[in-house]
């Protein structure tokens, strides 16, 4: 699957299927600090992402 990180932008490839929780663990990200977005909507933590998925991982903490 294609995983698009933001801030800074970076594309990563992982083998699917994999649950969102597991993916975030691999990336060492806190669930509360990001949203996982696929096809314009949110993917909950317990969802399993198929191998052909394309997801954006968007940080939500801003420093303004």
């Amino acid at each position: 699957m294609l995983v698009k990180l933001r801030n800074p932008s970076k594309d990563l490839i992982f083998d699917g299927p994999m649950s969102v929780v597991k993916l975030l663990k691999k990336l060492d990200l806190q669930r509360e600090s990001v949203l996982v977005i696929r096809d314009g909507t949110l993917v909950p933590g317990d969802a399993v992402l198929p191998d052909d998925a394309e997801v954006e991982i968007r940080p939500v903490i801003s420093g303004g």
Partner: protein
Amino acid sequence: MKCRVCRAPGVIDIRRHNANFCADHFLRYCREQVARTIKEFDMAAPGDRLLVAVSGGKDSLALWDILLELGYDVDGLYVGLGIGDYSDVSGTYVQNFVSTFLEPRGERSTTTLTHIDLRSEYDYDVPTAADATGRAPCSACGLSKRHLFDKAAREGDYDVLVTGHNLDDEAAVLYGNVMKWQIDYLARQRPVLAAENGFPKKAKPLVRLSERETAAYCVLRGIDYQVEECPMAAGNRHLEYKHALAAAEEASPGMKQAFYFGYLRDAAELFEQSNDGAPDGAPALLACESCGSPTSGDTNGQPRCAFCRLSQRAAAAEPVPVELLQTRRR
């Protein structure tokens, strides 16, 4: 994971409330939280005219949308800060919001957006002001924004100036104020401040929503916003405090909300009282000799406000591009 309200598949979990929601019920939850906050803190009355300060980020755009959905009469104000591409892109998101969410409302909406540009109207931008005055960029930026928001609210005869500060922002500011025991700031850290001395009433209707929730609101509502960070934000204290609180929240969900709302409930009044008793109190305010805004004057007691001092110095300086300021500050 099922929606707490309708049992349809959920798209978001809110750990501190131990609740999951589908998209529809999540949007409703956000609006209810804002309606409840406005009522609880007496932020606005029916018929009031509101002015929302919008930046192009998730919080202010979500707030504008929520207030309109709740039926408020609310206009937007955007200040172009001149922070390189970041500001250009931010302005585009605000414009897109207006054309996607406001214009299609047609005559149902009389909402307007006012755009103030620092460079074209005041002859300076935030990087140049920071460089010319030696202030931290966020300090020069905050001073400029506060002044222009206050002025616009006063001149436009608005009843309330609202801003998109969320639970994480307020908890982080509280954390910083406690760490440094800033008693005078603590005494004023309220989600609503009454109009006084020529300053407008100010309110923060998003204090019951975390920033993950305001971001999720935008995604589920289809609001595009500026996701990139402001290049001046890197390494600021506010961000450090947020990361510290995020770690605590991860270990015990609800901690942040308990910290902030516990403060408002049990401690804010104590700080207010102790500050009221200060012997010198607040100095009497004068009208700024160049712009007429209320001010306590400069160091020589001249009635000139901090904004006029900053903008005059910055306008006299050579423009400094944001990239150059970043290297100079490193």
